[in-house]
């Protein structure tokens, strides 16, 4: 078998090139195995690179890899305390804004004093139910100041985005 192209190597790591000849070649060819070993750390990092809005498929993949995931329901308009559980690797804030069927959904995070923390354009959400899952990682506690923050959810249906819900979350 001839050497694997860079494109094929990406396909192989992504699981889209399922061919025993490629597996065998990558175990035995010095040049190709070295190239694959160079790419492996990035692939591994991308598998655990968790976006701030996560899909159910992404959460299921993390669970298959042994991640412990805690969920916290956050009703719109209410002030919710969502502590990071000691026995969890990831805390998911479960939001249900009225965005079912939207073409696009954006989120804006602000402190309680109105200081903008972060904007998340075009986030993942469930188009049929409008469910939106925000992923909090433990190290966020070091990045973002403790206290309450507001999440404004905006929906777009091909025109200008409109704010449709606000969520208030205190993280500790």
């Amino acid at each position, binding site marked *: 078998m001839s050497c694997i192209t*860079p*494109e094929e190597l*990406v*396909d*192989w*790591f*992504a*699981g*889209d090139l399922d061919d*025993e000849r490629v*597996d*065998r070649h*990558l*175990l*035995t060819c010095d040049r190709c*195995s070295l190239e*694959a*070993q160079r*790419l*492996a*750390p*990035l*692939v*591994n*990092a*991308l*598998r*655990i*690179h*968790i*976006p701030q809005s996560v*899909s159910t*498929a*992404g959460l299921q*993949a993390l669970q*298959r*890899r*042994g991640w412990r995931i805690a969920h916290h329901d956050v009703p719109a308009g209410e002030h919710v305390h969502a502590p990071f559980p000691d026995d969890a690797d990831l805390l998911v804030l479960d939001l249900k804004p009225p965005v079912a069927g939207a073409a696009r959904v954006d989120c804006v995070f602000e402190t309680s004093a109105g200081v903008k923390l972060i904007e998340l*354009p*075009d986030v993942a959400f469930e188009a049929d139910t409008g469910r939106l899952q925000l992923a909090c990682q433990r190290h966020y506690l070091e990045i973002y100041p403790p206290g309450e923050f507001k999440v404004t959810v905006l929906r777009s249906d091909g025109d200008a985005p409109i704010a449709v819900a606000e969520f208030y979350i205190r993280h500790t």
Partner: protein
Amino acid sequence: MEPPDDELMRRVQAGEGGAEALLCRRYGPRFRMFGLRHLRDEAAAEDLAQQALLVMLQAVRERRVESLGAFVFGVCRNLAAAAKRGERRTVHAEVELPIDPPFDAVDGQRLAGCFERLPRREQKIVTMSFHEERSVDEIAAALKLTAVNARVIRHRAIARLRACLEGA
């Protein structure tokens, strides 16, 4: 120039010091890479690498291997299948296996910065491929692309990320 597999196997069988270590250094990272591809988890890949090295060394010492390439492929494939079925085999190492340390980890914050610089469509395809483990056909259908186009975009995104991480 490192000795070929056949010569290394003969040296292992002759009890030559250092030959087993050379074999482990050659194949340990390859087994780990195979584990990462098929098990998609770093710890599981490390287990597979350790187990495969033990099986390989034992078989070479006992002169049960004709073609090392074919042999290690069969071992890795069987170990990956067992791991996917949830079977965990206990590793009984007689000695400390001289496997190189795991791959250098990518700095998470640096990766996040590079990822943010990707066009949004490339971000989506990379996330759906590697984080959500979706097939390229599923991704193409979700984003209204052809599978060929999704593959090209994914490859371009990976190339951009590598260049960014390497500071190019």
